[in-house]
């Protein structure tokens, strides 16, 4: 990024007074960007995600400063890229880092405030309260009223802010009662049925009927009554009281729970920061166990072998098909097909083809040789199968880019080699490969990094299987790599989705990949030097 900024500053040297219309356009553009950004921040903030809202505001401020402060104008050209990088890359990274230090997981998905708020919405019928069945009426002015019937069969007519009125059958002012004992209209109010009733529901769900001492609200389609708030939070004592059972739950701000004296917890927990707990758990539960070492070895082996094998095959294909005849072009096109077919489709097809009972590869081999490799059940063959399928995916890609690299090698070099009497073989090792590596080296490293994190192939082909015996939890398979193991550890295997733990593992993997990337930069520089010397 430093390089890009540097370039932008160079451009700044050319700045000439901009025409008026250009400034106006910039301001207009800024106006739109700001308005959209503020709207985004406010609506995201309203949903409770303040971190993201603040990140957006800060980014927006940055854009404004860069655009409005003349000294920083050069930066304005990179500000869209910078802004996107902050929102899409830096922010998620920091957020993941933050989550890694919390216990954010199933059962701890809310902040304390949210948890208290959610519980505060729950209602209960206090002891001695009456639950009525209800029907809704409306008068011409649009006011609503309820027809309430209690368990004893007594009926009441309830209007907002008016005491409940007991109704006697065939009272004056009411239409004749139907078979359910309800009049079609009463006191100028008509019974709402069908669509009218459905449309009224959103209006009446928050109303109360009856006077202050007996304010009947609607709790469910079956029940109305004087329902009260069940969970009450007291910030002074940091306790939550369940009024239905009169149990006091004290907040445990270390584990993120409300705990009653007898050890039971309130229905909703909240998330808290837990320091290095998640990392400690990874160290104590996984690093000390055998599978992790095997998983790491396989991850590295797959990243290296998978990349180098597909690069090798791609390069060979490119060399062999490096002609311009029709046949060559056709073959080249055909080779690209695996690259063009959606990955998941290919993997599913491969999974079927490799199955020992119904797959075309094992059944054919079986009939030809009387033996077929147990692809999906033997750990070694399963790894082989994964490398094979990876070859199918990645070799065409390398063929494509290697073809390009081959075109760029000047034929002069080969002519000179011919004159010097170098064999084809020597030419390949001394000229072709080094020169191809100059341009493809960085891509190779990038591909190794990609394969290091190749979740898709591991999960889709055998789901990590065959399983590894003799391990402790969580279950892990022979073809699981670090990232799919992480997934199993944090989401698939545990009873709860543990985002905190997953984030901690993500941070660790990020550090590893970061180190690889640094290596890439270093190697790239080396290659650049090589190419300068050619």
């Amino acid at each position, binding site marked *: 990024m430093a390089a890009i900024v540097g370039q932008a500053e160079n451009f700044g040297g050319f700045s000439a007074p901009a025409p008026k219309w250009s400034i106006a356009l910039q301001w207009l553009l800024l*106006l739109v960007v*700001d*308005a*959209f950004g*503020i*709207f985004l921040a*406010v609506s995201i903030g309203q*949903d*409770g995600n303040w971190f993201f809202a603040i990140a957006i505001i800060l980014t927006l401020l940055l854009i*404004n400063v860069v655009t*409005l402060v003349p000294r920083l104008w050069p930066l304005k050209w990179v500000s869209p890229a910078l802004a996107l990088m902050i929102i899409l890359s830096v922010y998620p990274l920091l957020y993941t880092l933050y989550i890694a230090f919390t216990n954010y997981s*199933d*059962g701890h998905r*809310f902040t304390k405030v*949210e*948890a208290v708020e959610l*519980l505060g919405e729950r209602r209960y019928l206090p002891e001695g309260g009456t639950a009525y069945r209800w029907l809704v009426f409306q008068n011409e002015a649009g006011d609503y009223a309820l027809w309430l019937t209690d368990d004893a069969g007594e009926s009441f007519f309830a209007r907002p802010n008016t005491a409940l009125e007991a109704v006697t059958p065939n009272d004056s002012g009411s239409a004749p009662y139907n078979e359910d004992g309800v009049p079609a209209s009463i006191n100028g109010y008509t019974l709402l049925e*069908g*669509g009218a009733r*459905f*449309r009224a*529901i*959103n209006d009446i*769900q928050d109303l109360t009927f009856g006077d202050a001492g007996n304010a009947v609200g*609607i709790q*469910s*389609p*079956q*029940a109305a009554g004087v329902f009260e708030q069940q969970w009450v939070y007291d910030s002074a004592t940091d306790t939550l009281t369940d009024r239905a059972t009169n149990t006091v739950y004290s907040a*445990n701000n270390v*584990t993120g*729970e409300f705990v009653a*004296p*007898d*050890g039971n*917890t309130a*229905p*909703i927990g909240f998330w808290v920061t837990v320091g290095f707990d998640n990392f400690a758990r990874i160290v104590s539960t996984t690093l000390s166990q055998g599978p992790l070492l095997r998983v790491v070895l396989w991850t590295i082996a797959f990243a290296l072998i998978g990349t180098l094998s597909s690069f090798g095959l791609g390069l060979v294909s490119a060399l062999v098909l490096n002609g311009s005849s029709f046949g060559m072009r056709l073959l080249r096109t055909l080779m690209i097909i695996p690259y063009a077919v959606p990955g998941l489709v290919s993997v599913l097809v491969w*999974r079927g083809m490799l*199955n*020992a*009972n*119904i797959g075309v590869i094992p059944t054919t081999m079986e009939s030809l040789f009387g033996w077929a490799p*147990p692809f999906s*059940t033997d750990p070694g063959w399963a790894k082989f199968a994964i490398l094979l399928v990876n070859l199918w995916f990645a070799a065409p890609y390398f063929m494509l880019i290697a073809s390009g690299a081959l075109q760029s090698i000047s034929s002069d070099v080969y002519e000179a080699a011919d004159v010097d009497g170098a064999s084809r073989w020597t030419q390949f090792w001394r000229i072709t490969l080094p020169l191809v590596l100059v341009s493809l080296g960085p891509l190779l490293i990038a591909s190794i990094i990609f394969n290091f994190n190749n979740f898709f192939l591991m999960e889709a082909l055998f789901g990590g*299987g*065959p*399983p590894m*015996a003799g*391990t*402790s*939890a*969580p*279950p892990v398979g022979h073809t699981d790599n670090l990232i799919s193991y992480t997934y*199993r550890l944090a989401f*698939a*295997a*545990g*009873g*709860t989705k543990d985002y905190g733990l997953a984030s901690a593992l993500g941070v660790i993997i990020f550090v590893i990949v970061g180190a690889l990337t640094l290596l890439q930069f270093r190697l790239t520089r080396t290659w650049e030097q090589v190419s300068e010397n050619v």
Partner: protein
Amino acid sequence: MKRLLVLVLTLCILSLTVFPAVAQDRPDLLIWADSTRAPALQGLVEQFSEEYGVTAEVQEIAMGDIRSNLPVAGPAGEGPDIVVGAHDWLGEYIQNAAIVPVELGDVAEQFSPSSLGLFTIDGVLYGVPYAVENLAFFRNTDLVPEAPATWDEVFEITAELVDSGTSQFGFVIANNASYDFFPIMTAFGGYVFGRDDAGNFLPGDIGIGSAGTIAAADYIKQFVDAGYLNADINGDAQIALFSTGDAAMTLTGPWWLNRLREAGVPFAISDIPAGPEGPGVPFIGGQGFMVSAFSENQLLAQVFLGEFMATTDAMLALYNVDPRPPAFLPALEAIEETAMAEFQQAGAAGVPLPAIPEMASVWGSWGNALQFVVSGELTPEESYTQAQTQIVELIGAMDAAPTSVGLVGNFQALLGCASDWAPDCENTFMTSNGDDGSYSITTAALPAGDYEAKVAFDGAWDRNFGAGGTAGGDNILFSVPADNTLMVFNFDADNALSISEGSVALVGSVQSALGCPGDWQPECAETEMTPNGDGAFTLTTAALAAGDYEVKVALNDGWAINYGADGARNGDNIAFSVPADGTEVVFTFDATSNVLTVAAGS
């Protein structure tokens, strides 16, 4: 700079007024359904909107995403009012407070009781079921004309068919299909979670490593040993083999009906065969509608479900796109498909697929266990014991050694703790009885009365045990008959806490002189000490010859709990001397401080 501030302020106001107006209007009811059900619901919802003038919309979302996205989208205000999903999501949803109870009122009578049971947690209904589903036994009628009644018959038929070359496979089961394995497990006495009397699943009682489960795995192993099953039959292969007639029998559910009919294979559906422990029972799963806790129109959603969806027409519309036995009885009756009744019959005694969050920890290890057996990598016993260990570990590291075992209860303040029910109070930490994994503590400081107790590990509530050794179980009640009675609390390796009155015996080199058969015998009744009512126990004797002696105190006739010098548990012997033959020696044991004092001579 001032210019900048003014501008930003203007923009704030502008954006707050303009954009919300542009923001889209939500429909009154938004329903999330997967691609199978969405089209049927789409039609129903349009009809509903037209009929009642309430706007409703269906959003098509992948099944797995509905499950995971509701707790994320809901709090952000982007969630639906109603989701269509499976009953075993309930545990996770309730844990994340994502759904609210629903009330069906009188309509409830029209649903099959078992389907309502699936959506009921702790007596509260959380969903409106529309279909129930379970496995049944499928056979190819050309190969197996009569339905086998027992699993032994299934094996015999398989042997006959395969050995005679009539068919490639007999009975097939996918290599890691724990769901399909369950009906076999139950026929052999296995289970996943134990259940209490009310039918609730007990996450502390896991039966994956039980003898019944292993017996069922032994049964499958027979097939493997004889070459009738191999490790490479996965779910894809299972259906492929059965639909081509290469496999004669299997276990599967209604979701296969259409595919099998298209394949044209002649098949019949029957009950699950029986094993030594009776008929096998399948898991029962339910599909239904749940109301989002984040919905602002919960009442409308409930009325929609109770009055519009709970009708024969709506239920049949769903059945037609996704033929699974309807939970709504009038709809079930209206269906002419006999297979539905056969499935219902096969699942009549079924066990609800556990909806507790702990179930998520079971699948992986449970499925792998079968794969190890079928591949021959592990014996059934090794395999299922390993799975049990993994599951126990996942469900809450229940088997990890506790850092402390605390006796907690409403008496702790009396024992010098800061408060009652304090798991971190060191005064009531229990002490290990040795290698058998049991712990105990004694006290004589409690006044007469009734008390409640539990045991909590690690000074926290995360792992606590109540009645019957159940994790998070009910409080254990006990009473102290008289003030200062010596109470012994013993917590055994099965996490059960037992509470009894204690007896105290003087043990040591004095015992043979006091009429015991030998020295250091805690079970000897002759040296039992007498309680004197204030929490102390005494023994007085003048029968000792002059000399040096060593003594300790042992509780409840055994060495598990013994106290030595300074009242220390398993402490050093207490040495004393008797100056002359016949000196009166008084042994006093203070059961509160656990200190034994010896007074020789006056």
